[in-house]
């Protein structure tokens, strides 16, 4: 599904990713943990194609395609989805209009017929329900005036509608109360399937109680310094990251 080899990337001339390698197979859930400034969010942004993030060397293969050579929208159309840590507000553009444009674009790129308005509305309402957002949110401006938790659930709702192959959740648990966390986790778990993979970036082991990962990686100094099963998250929770200094 995704194969990252020796990826080096910089932001404003600051080297953040320093030879990161990671392989993700279909249906796998990989948790990425690590101290602040390790490059966790940068990895998500580089994969999603954010301007200003320069790839210096290395390669990323996504389903047989050179991901780094693709435009941002083409990556999304190919099935990559980044749930933002800080979702962006777009005043005046209704959530519904935004979602329709998004789903239409992705379907068109995949030679699928556009959904008619009725079917789309139905799906959008179902997705809202699944993440416990009132359907009125569809009429509101994209993330406009949403609370932190509402923004995160809105991200998840988009993910459900777009049905991506690879979902990258960038600290989707931050700022969520325990109920919202469970809603988000339930949403993610409902989407788990044999051909859909997840990268779950998180600071806390707590989320992994609800979304059980197949692999846990520790990202420090721009590289994966340790990988393991879900028990690694528990170890990190009890020991912190200080012990990694030697490993990095």
């Amino acid at each position, binding site marked *: 599904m995704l194969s990252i080899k020796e990826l080096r990337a910089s932001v404003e001339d600051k080297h953040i990713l320093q030879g990161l390698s990671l392989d993700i197979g279909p249906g796998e859930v990989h948790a990425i943990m690590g101290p602040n400034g390790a490059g966790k969010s940068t990895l998500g942004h580089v994969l999603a194609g954010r301007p200003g993030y320069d790839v210096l060397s290395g390669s990323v293969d996504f389903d047989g395609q050179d991901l780094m050579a693709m435009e941002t929208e083409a990556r999304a*159309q190919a099935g990559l989805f980044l749930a933002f840590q800080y979702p962006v507000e777009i005043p005046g553009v209704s959530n519904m209009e935004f979602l329709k444009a998004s789903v239409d674009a992705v379907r068109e790129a995949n030679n699928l017929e556009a959904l008619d308005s009725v079917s789309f509305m139905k799906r959008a309402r179902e997705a809202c329900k699944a993440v416990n957002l009132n359907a009125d949110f569809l009429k509101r401006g994209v993330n406009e005036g949403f609370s932190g938790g509402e923004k995160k659930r809105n991200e998840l709702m988009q993910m459900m509608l777009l049905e991506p192959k690879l979902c990258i959740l960038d600290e989707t648990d931050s700022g969520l109360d325990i109920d919202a966390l469970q809603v988000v986790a339930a949403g993610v778990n409902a989407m788990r399937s044999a051909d859909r993979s997840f990268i779950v970036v998180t600071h806390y082991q707590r989320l992994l109680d609800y979304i059980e990962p197949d692999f846990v990686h520790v990202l420090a100094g721009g590289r994966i310094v340790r990988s393991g099963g879900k028990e690694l998250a528990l170890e990190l929770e009890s020991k912190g990251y200080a012990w990694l200094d030697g490993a990095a």
Partner: protein
Amino acid sequence: MIGPVFEPAIAAARAGAPRWLRPKMDVAALTLDATPIPTRKSEHWKYAPLTGLALSANEASDEVSGTEKLVSLGGCDITVTRDGLQFGASGLDRLPSGVEVRSFSELDELEASRVLELMGSAAKDRSGLIAAVSDATLGVGVWVDIADDADVDAPLHLVWQASSAWLSARVLVTAGCNSRANIIEHFANGAPAVSQQHSVTELFLASGAALDYCRINRHGNADTFLGGVFAKLHRNATLNAFAYAAGAKLCRNEWGILFDEEGAHAELNGIYLPAGREVVDFHTTLEHAVAHCTSEETFRGIIGDRANAVFNGRIHIHPHAQKTIARLSNKNLLTSDQAQVNTKPELEIYANDVQCAHGATVAQINDEAIHYCRTRGITQAVASQLIGIGFVVSLFDRITYEPLRTWLSEQARRRCLTLVTGDAGE
């Protein structure tokens, strides 16, 4: 002097004008003869001078190669050309009861003297030039008279088509006491031939009258439009006005609203979307001459390519206009590095017990928002269109007549795509 620029139009208009109107036209023509062509040195024409106008006038021809299909918005459609008024398919039956529409050429002596008395008596434009051009070149005059207590749901839709090189129009609307009506004036892209249109509309709202008025400017990018809307509001009258300008070589509209008696309220909202090398210029003046009146004015614009927009909004609170509430806001979005906007909100207050606010902003499309859209598979062009329309769309809610709101916002949506992709206007 600017007079010679309009000579062909003045001569043609004078020949076809009713006798009673000619002295007024002659006075205006003399005014133009004594008025220099406004340049960048004239404050009111600083950012959109008329220096290129002479050339456009010479280029003007009488060729017509087709007109845009009339959009019906479910009311009474009246197409106006230099030859006069043409009512929509169902004819005069569609004219709502309580509304009379008369061409100046068919007025009797008494009506003519009433019209002469009204002409130019609503608020004045600041430069005086728009009214002088309109009077001197007046080709078609229309008087819309709404009876006292008339309650008209369906709008009167006046579609001006430049079926010739010149179209110069004057509309007078007299809205009777406690009447309620809706008027749409639509200046369409009449023909591929270059056209010049002059249009002044004066709205007289009697006590308790409520009028929705919308002016739509959709011209070709070589057309020139000089126009104005001037309104006089009597006691407790309410004006809900909307302006839409998609651009032209020069599209200048002056708005003047005079609060002449207490208790009146005016809302003036506008959207301008110039592309290519088009120039859209709005000069608005709200004259709060008496106490206890309120006004709300919001203009938003998206400016693309090498287009230029001018917004000059003035609120003038006279010494006795206590308890006035007046708000003015102008926001602009530039979609290219070479797009330009010159905005100047002005507040001039001579009363001490008023609530006033004014402000203007100029911004570019937010890169973060574009990126966010792109991560959802939306191309940059569509993302820009979405964000652009999002910038102006809330203003359409101020249009109360639903078919107009829907149709006009769709026009804006299409226009936004042009603005962000930059594939038109040249």
